[in-house]
């Protein structure tokens, strides 16, 4: 809620200075200065210099979604400061960081897109020559061209995509409004392909409660040991660090598994420097110790996992009672609530039934008496054992898992992971001595074997039974999407064409084919994102994707690597120039962000831009409610209403916790959202994160496995040319590419750097501070080499998302592979080999 505030009881800036000078002068004789008392008296005498404070929500994809005071004087935002959460009166969730504090530059800096622009006639894309045009002209150019393209190539030839630059429900990534418009014109939705490997690896074992769930951070302190696997919390999720520090103060032991000595690793009770892309082997080896010492939680395995299920060796499927002649039951079940972070086409829910039919065909298990029974009838399902089903050998899922695990004794894993065998044993003992939290980061997720790293880790929770209670859990959890909202707002229709993964787009653009069918795409509309900077393999993206577009339109509030290649740039409003509902938040709160100032220059909110585009395409009445009306349609659902959450209340309270209990702990009472309701570490029917018409080895996907990633390992196909693994960090100075042009932060962090172990640098004749060219077959990038002993030899680390004009040449994303795992269908940012040499050019 907005409030008026006299920052001091009445004195102008100038008045204050005069007062200071006068008092200081007067008291100088006495050798003193303006005393606090004297100043306080002076304040009381002036005229109020009014400052209005609005409630703003910072909503970039660190997912902290901090509440900010937006201080406005003379219609200008003059600063942003911490604002307390009403849902957490103890202040435990209050937060702000260097980015949240420096918004004023993002808003008022010279890099704002001020008015609609088109690429100057006769100039190449990327040349940076622009002509100012009116909104009317811009919309006409775009929609005329879209109509022509749809006429010529079909409706699907118009596509739209986004990044993660605004976690809003109306003008941001959780908004159904884009789908309302683009479904209406039957356009193709291109889905970003990131952060999916963890999700796939975990959710296929426990089911879907949202993409990235873990115990509320305030629960970390209830764990005996907290394992952090490849998460740079102290840079990328600064807002969560104090929960970890609080846990340490409360006696929790912090174990950080990371190839890099991060600030977090420096504070750990135990840092385990692991070889990149080998987390799955490490977890499997820890499980080896647990099995070898007969220390697994057998009752949990029996009662809450698929361990006793018999698996047929011929099909790889569970032996089911229907195999044994028992007729399956068909029941009607309710369809679970969807989460808001899902980048699904929101139109997918149009006309969707509330219930679905479920076939109950119980798995068969071996009972204690040696007979095979239905899971629900057996009194003591056995974890180990074999069964001959009409000549088809069947084993328990647990036996199959153990067979897999037994390949990784610590003595063998130490060579794979470069972690001493005794350390692996120690880690296993710590993990057994619960309760433990395992927070997985985006490290292992960034290789093409990442699905299995997550699968292995969640499987370890099945062996220990440490999941679903206070202090015990495994998951990602830096990012939470609400549940229970409604995507089917007024005007929503179903999408005519299926979503397409961004990783499939280059091939579509090269061939005009999608899954073997003609599927030309000729125009892409980009909002809340900077794919040229943040997606992999930039040269492929620029040449094959943008290069084959007839019209590339980008809406953004500032100039980026992506606006650089646009044919039309639309000036979007900054977050604080519009009101917004934020339903994706690490705080697990619905949040309302007020409009503090009018959109600067000629900028418009994405919501307003969509209305213009709809009108231009012949649907002037498509989006005809107010922002408030749509937000209320999103939030005012029976499910949320039952918790007392309504849009009006969110607006009034500014923040509302969306779970019925606090702190929220997923998988309570070991209730999992799989078919059996148990942890299915043996994945009976592996599926892909995204259908791009691919095939995959189903057998590999049944259980967690360790295998090499695509490129980032010794002996990989490019090893003869390139011998350094290129890792990135999400530095505190930016959120992906946002804030990259912020002058305040650039004073602290002025130019692109590459962090190198001195041994690797010296071997290549590179001195500390030299400009170097990092290169591979895909591209190159020039940055300043910075010696850092915390970088694992054989690796280099670049702080990501500098814009290309900030580099002397190239940019980091040029170097990144667009190869992907067919199951995870995920951008694998770290799966790269490179070399580096001194750069002598200007």
């Amino acid at each position: 809620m907005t409030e008026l505030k006299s920052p001091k009881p009445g004195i102008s800036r100038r008045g204050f200075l005069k007062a200071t000078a006068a008092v200081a002068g007067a008291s100088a004789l006495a050798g003193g200065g303006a005393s606090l008392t004297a100043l306080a008296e002076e304040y009381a005498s002036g005229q109020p210099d009014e400052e209005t404070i609005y409630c703003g929500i910072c909503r970039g994809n660190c997912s902290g979604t901090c509440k900010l005071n937006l201080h406005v004087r003379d219609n200008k935002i003059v600063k942003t400061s911490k604002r307390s959460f009403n849902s957490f009166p103890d202040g435990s969730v209050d937060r702000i960081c260097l980015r949240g504090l420096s918004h004023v530059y993002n808003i008022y800096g010279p890099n704002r897109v001020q008015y609609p622009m088109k690429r100057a006639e006769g100039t190449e894309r990327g040349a940076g020559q622009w002509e100012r045009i009116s909104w009317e002209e811009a919309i006409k150019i775009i929609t005329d061209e879209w109509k022509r393209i749809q006429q010529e190539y079909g409706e699907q030839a118009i596509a739209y995509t986004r990044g993660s630059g605004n976690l809003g429900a109306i003008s941001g990534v959780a908004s159904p409004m884009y789908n309302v418009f683009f479904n209406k014109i039957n356009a193709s939705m291109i889905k970003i392909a990131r952060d999916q490997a963890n999700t796939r690896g975990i959710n296929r074992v426990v089911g879907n409660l949202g993409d990235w769930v873990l115990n509320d951070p305030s629960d970390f302190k209830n764990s005996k040991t907290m394992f952090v696997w490849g998460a740079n919390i102290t840079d990328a999720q600064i807002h969560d660090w104090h929960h970890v520090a609080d846990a340490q103060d409360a006696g929790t032991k912090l174990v950080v598994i990371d190839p890099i000595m991060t600030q977090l690793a420096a504070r750990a009770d135990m840092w385990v420097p692991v070889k990149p892309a080998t987390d799955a082997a490490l977890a499997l080896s820890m499980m080896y110790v647990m099995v070898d010492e007969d220390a697994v939680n057998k009752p949990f395995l029996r009662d809450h996992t698929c361990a006793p299920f018999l698996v047929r060796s011929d099909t790889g499927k569970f032996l089911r009672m229907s195999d044994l002649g028992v007729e399956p039951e068909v029941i009607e079940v309710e369809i679970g609530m969807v989460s808001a972070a899902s980048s699904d086409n929101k139109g997918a829910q149009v006309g969707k039934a509330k219930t679905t039919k479920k076939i109950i065909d119980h798995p068969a298990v071996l009972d204690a008496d040696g007979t095979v029974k239905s899971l629900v009838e057996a009194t003591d399902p056995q974890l180990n054992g074999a069964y001959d089903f009409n000549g088809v050998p069947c084993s328990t899922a647990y036996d199959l898992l153990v067979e897999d695990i037994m390949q990784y004794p610590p003595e063998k894993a130490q060579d794979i992971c470069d972690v001493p065998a005794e350390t692996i044993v120690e880690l296993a003992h710590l993990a057994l001595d619960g309760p433990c939290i395992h927070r997985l980061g985006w490290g292992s997720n960034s290789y093409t074997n990442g699905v299995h790293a997550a699968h292995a880790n969640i499987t370890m929770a099945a062996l220990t039974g440490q999941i679903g209670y206070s202090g015990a859990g495994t998951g990602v959890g830096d990012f939470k999407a609400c549940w229970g909202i409604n995507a089917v707002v007024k005007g929503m229709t179903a999408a005519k064409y299926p979503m397409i993964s961004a990783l499939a787009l280059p091939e579509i653009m090269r061939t005009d084919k999608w899954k073997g069918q003609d599927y030309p795409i000729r125009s892409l509309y980009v909002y809340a994102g900077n794919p040229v900077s943040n997606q992999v393999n930039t040269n492929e993206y620029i040449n094959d994707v943008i290069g084959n577009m007839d019209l590339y339109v980008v809406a953004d509030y500032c100039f980026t690597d992506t606006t650089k290649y646009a044919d039309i740039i639309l000036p979007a409003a900054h977050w604080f120039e519009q009101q917004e509902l934020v339903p994706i938040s690490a705080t697990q709160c619905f949040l309302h962000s007020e409009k503090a100032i009018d959109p600067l220059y000629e900028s418009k909110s994405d919501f307003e831009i969509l209305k213009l585009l709809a009108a231009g395409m012949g649907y002037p009445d498509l989006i005809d409610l107010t922002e408030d009306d749509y937000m209320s349609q999103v939030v005012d659902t029976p499910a949320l209403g039952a918790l007392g959450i309504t849009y009006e209340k969110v607006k009034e309270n500014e923040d509302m916790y969306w779970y019925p209990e606090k702190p929220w702990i997923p998988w309570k009472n070991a209730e999992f959202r799989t078919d059996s309701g148990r942890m299915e570490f043996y994945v009976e029917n592996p599926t892909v994160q995204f259908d791009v018409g691919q095939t995959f080895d189903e057998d590999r996907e049944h259980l967690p496995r360790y295998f090499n990633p695509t490129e980032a390992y010794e002996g990989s196909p490019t090893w003869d040319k390139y011998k350094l693994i290129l890792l990135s960090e999400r530095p505190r100075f930016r959120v992906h590419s946002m804030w990259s042009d912020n002058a305040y932060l650039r004073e602290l962090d002025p130019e692109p750097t590459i962090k190198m172990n001195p041994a690797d640098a010296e071997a290549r004749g590179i001195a500390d501070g030299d400009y170097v060219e990092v290169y591979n077959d895909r591209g190159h990038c020039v940055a300043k080499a910075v010696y850092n002993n915390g970088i694992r030899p054989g690796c280099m680390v670049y702080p990501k998302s500098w814009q290309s004009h900030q580099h002397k040449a190239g940019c980091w994303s040029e170097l990144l592979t667009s190869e992907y795992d067919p199951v995870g269908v995920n951008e694998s940012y770290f799966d790269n080999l490179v070399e580096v040499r001194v750069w002598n050019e200007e």
Partner: protein
Amino acid sequence: MADKKLVMLVDTKRCIACNSCAVACKIENNLPKNIWWNRIMTVGGGNLDSPEGEYPNLKMHNVTVACQHCENPACVKVCPVGATYKDPETGVVRQDYDKCIGCRMCMSACPYTGVRSFNWEEPKYSLAHAVGDADAPEHQKHVVEKCTFCYQRISKGETPACMDLCPARARHWGDLDDPNSDVSRAIAGRSYEHLLDEKGTKPGVYYLV
């Protein structure tokens, strides 16, 4: 003796060098381009965020460095015009811009290199409008400036900007003479260090270790 002993505590076990306090100070005080009253240093290797030792036997921690608001300030003794002085009420070391003649004696005398800056030119700003606290004193050419413990804020009963709020919960500020203050509670049972203790300045910034 000052009526109060306003001090700052920085918990080096918690500080992650996120620089939020530095930016809070920068904005709140509308600091000119390239002026920082509060900086974060890595205690470790030669570069920021770089540890000391050989991989993997490494360690690092961070210190935030601003005016130490010493009990025995070296700067006050050398100022020929009394522009830098210790506030009798709070113990804050203040700098009177209107009296400062720009001789920079205080900068030479202060053992904490970099905590003071001198505006050689008319101050330049990244933005056209003044940001931060309306009451922050205006910056002047040929004047030495530094951290004031946000005097304009503490005089309103607020905390210094860098204290509002440290995301790591690593910073504490208050009156060490008051046994119930945040600083008195935070320091209880903890070991602490001062920067350059041997200089005898008796700093008002305590680094919990």
